[in-house]
């Protein structure tokens, strides 16, 4: 009995000693990192593709080992079911190394959904989809007039995240022949509401700025002859994680990505320029004459 116990102990230690301490730290299932977007104002499109590798990609020259990529890139307009195959190119980057860039040429339709597939020869693929923002005319909410400010909010029901909003005011003295544009940059102002993207337009502040820019004294009565709103909108998913583009946050794998079985982001962009006239009552409160 005692000998059996000892033999068992020695055998257990021997087996423990032979146990393989090998470690494979990798998990599979993610294939490509993709960066790019569709622009409905352009017909040439490109996407950067980085294969997920067990060693960092390093392409110091076009004939370097990593210069080849086992990938086919296609995009499909899911509304029309038209598929395009993209063309590979090895592009020199800012630091003199090279990266894999795929290009294609087609017209991007607002409101259409597109699907990008990056496929390896073994069938493994990374997929991303984007819906191009469809920017219709904004809906004006009632003006908010107080003794010291006049604002009126606009709502874009189908807008994505604004990349930039600009308002061009064209004002002239009453009876004047021509007006000059004054551009007010709203950046990414506003907020997403249930009704859509809501932008409060600070009319009193803007029109004071316009008067100053055009050099008219306070007693000159101005007529607002035209007002254009230029809205550049991004795919709704193209937004800062946790409210800010903090590299240590959105650099996290999995943060700001819409790529299935991969990383990176493939989005879309649309732009609209719409004329709009603020409420007559609001303009009169500001001392402006509404456009005829």
């Amino acid at each position, binding site marked *: 009995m005692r000998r059996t116990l000892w033999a068992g102990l020695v055998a257990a*230690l*021997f087996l*423990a*000693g032979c*146990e*393989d*301490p*090998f*470690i*494979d*730290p*990798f*998990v*599979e*299932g*993610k294939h490509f*990192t993709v*960066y*790019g*977007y569709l*622009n409905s104002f352009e017909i040439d499109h*490109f*996407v*950067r593709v*980085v*294969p*997920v*590798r*067990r*060693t*960092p*990609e*390093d392409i110091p020259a076009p004939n370097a080992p990593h210069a080849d990529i086992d990938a086919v890139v296609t995009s499909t307009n899911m509304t029309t079911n038209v598929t395009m195959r993209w063309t590979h190119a090895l*592009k020199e*980057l*800012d*630091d003199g*190394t090279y*990266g894999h*860039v795929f290009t294609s040429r087609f017209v991007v339709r607002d409101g259409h959904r597109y699907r990008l597939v990056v496929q390896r020869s073994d069938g493994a693929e990374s997929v991303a989809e984007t819906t191009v923002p469809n920017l219709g005319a904004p809906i004006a909410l009632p003006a908010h007039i107080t003794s010291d400010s006049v604002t009126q909010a606009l709502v874009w029901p189908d807008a994505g995240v604004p*990349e930039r909003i600009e308002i061009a005011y064209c004002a002239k003295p009453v009876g004047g022949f021509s007006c000059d544009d004054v551009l007010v940059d709203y950046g990414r102002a506003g907020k997403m509401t249930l009704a859509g993207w809501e932008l409060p337009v600070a009319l009193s502040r803007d029109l004071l700025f316009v008067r100053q820019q055009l050099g008219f004294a306070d007693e000159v009565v101005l007529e607002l002859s035209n007002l254009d709103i230029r809205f550049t909108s*991004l795919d709704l998913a*193209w937004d*800062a994680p946790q409210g800010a*583009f903090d*590299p*240590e*946050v*959105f*650099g*996290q*794998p999995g943060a*700001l990505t819409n790529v299935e079985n991969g*990383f*990176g*982001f493939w989005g879309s*962009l649309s732009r609209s320029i719409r004329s709009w006239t603020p409420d007559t009552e609001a303009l009169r409160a500001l001392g402006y004459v509404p456009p005829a």
Partner: protein
Amino acid sequence: MSARALAVTLALLTVLPVEISAQFASVRGYVSDAATRERLAGVNVVLSLDDGDLLGAATDADGYFVINRVPPGTAQMRVTFIGYAPLSDTLHLEQREVRMLRLELSLEESELGEIVVEAEAAEGAATTVAGLQTVRPADIERVPMPGVSGDLVSYLQTMPGVSSLGDRGGQFFIRGGTSSQNDILLDGIPLFQPFHIVGFYSAFPSEVVNKVDFYKGGFGARYGGRLSSVIDVETRNGNKDRFSGSVALAPLMSGVRVEGPIVPGRVSAIVSIRESFIEDIMSGSVGDKLPYRLGDRFGKVHAFLSDEASLSITGITTHDEGDIGANPESFLGDEISTIVADSTEIRWSNQAIGGKFLFAPVSTPIHIKATGSVFRYDTELGNDDVPEREAEVTGYKFAAEITRFRGVNRVRAGLFAERRELSYQLGDAFQNFTSNVEDLDEAGAYIESAVAVFRDLTMEPGVRLHAFPGRDRMYVEPRLRSIWFPEGRLGRHKVSAAVGIYHQGIIGLSDERDVGNVFTAWVAPPDDKSVPESIHAIAGWEGTLRPWLTVAAEGYFKSLENLSVPIFSPFPGFTTRLQEATGSIYGLDLRAEVDAIRYENWELYGYVGYGYSTVEYETDVLTYSPPHDRRHQINLVARARTGELELVAQWQFGSGFSYTKSIGFDVWIPFTGPDVDVSSQQGQTRVLFDEPYAGRLPAYHRLDVWLEKSFRRDRVKGALRAGVVNLYDRDNLFYFDLFTFRRINQLPLVPSVGIKLEID
């Protein structure tokens, strides 16, 4: 009940034992080693009264004891301590007499079956009282290690609930806490990293240790400022009668100890110097490079100022240097050179000096202790000339404590104040340079008592007020420890429990992405955040099932609040950006110790310990097991001795630490909008993490075997030890670099011989 209300209740309880009694006598005094005059802690002093009752006390860390409420008349006194011949005497005591005794014990073979009178004493590998284990040099010597002298750190590694990185790095994780949550004291001096870079050694060789109170949690009100554990080391005093010393020669650690009287009988000194020659002697012999340089210097002067007072001055320096990432093996072959890794060259050192004054007046049953210390700790990572990262802590600490004895009860109250200057400079190839210097002050007071509520139940309520004046915060920390002897104090069973609230004002910031990143920068909590807090709950049982068999089980739970942990960054480089986290830890320690069994001509000793632990942190976005989470741990120690020959074997097993698996590398481009030209920006190489800490590293296990031959010629005692670390040459993983995919292994099979000569 709120913490404040609970604290008030406990404060009231602490004063209960103070009562007036006039007709009783009191016996008090010191117990010392007859040969060295070293004061002995934990000695049992028992009085057998005429009516058959027993009264008793155990000496404290300074060898002092008090037995109050002794009925006048005759009492038989018996003084016992493991390893010493018992001392017996008959005392005739008058009413109100205060008898002051100076007792000396002589060395002898250990005696079994002594009467334990002190609830808090918890000695032996299987003996624990609500998280407390008292460790003595003899316990340390039982654990095999390369080299000839024992070291506290090797002993601690055999304890369930104590995880280490392995044989290098100097980091300890006690019951799920991080290494920066351990309070390490040497004669009251706080030390920040006293564990050496080669994991067999610390600044606490058994030769200078007198006693260690090791709290794995649930510590009483006299301790604070840390969330996890306390390692309170009391060092020996030098021999006051004659000179003695030792010389130990071994490649991993060699040392010299000299001690002796300065003023015979009153003032003594002890000096210990140790240095490792592992790099010079062993690097070639085991195949791998072993680029480690380490050592320590310890000195202490102790003086009896009078029969009632003593003063000691303790000084220590430690130094460690080496490349913990030496001999890397790449998972990916040569391609790995394409990414720059963090440096693995690290250095740290401690310098500290402190004094302790003790006063125990004959006329009053009180004991007063005052300590003061200054300390400095610095660490660097990277090249010696231009380190990538540096951190330093300097400071001083003062504390005073008064203990009043009343019968078997005791009340202790104390004050403390500590000031630290924390500085760090961090910078490397992947991040902006960051530096900071800040002060952190802590001050407060505590009161605690040991109250024999019933004959077989002792409660130790306490409360600590811990303030952080610079941050305008103060915390009330109620504590309660208890021990119950179901079969009486002489019975076989002991049940103990402890609860308490703890705060830690200093944060040890390390790169939590990898447990192998041992660089720690010490910082104060952010001004806008609360101080990290923990609640401990411990319950345990211990049974002496046979005279030679002790078995113990202890469960514990710790909650953690307001932790500041670094954010999980996907880029190589240390970050000081913190996120708030909460945590929970629970686990179970089981141990069994078999001692003094004889088999033919062999005297056998065996110890087995098993520890289970689960650690979970939760941030706003993630719930994870941090990289020091080790679930299972087994330690086996077997020793057989016949005559002058001793064979010792130790097997350690630890399940793998958690780590983050990788998906691979890609390129990250900060794609914030269409103005970013992704077709020309090169981007930044990024390691793609899988779910953080979801993977488990391979298990760690190792068998060490040692053979020792001892001899004695008059005053010269010698030992020759030969053995092997990692007998079956397992490729134990030390750590795995998330960015370069290099694995760093622990020590391979390392043979070692050593000799020690001692003059006593």
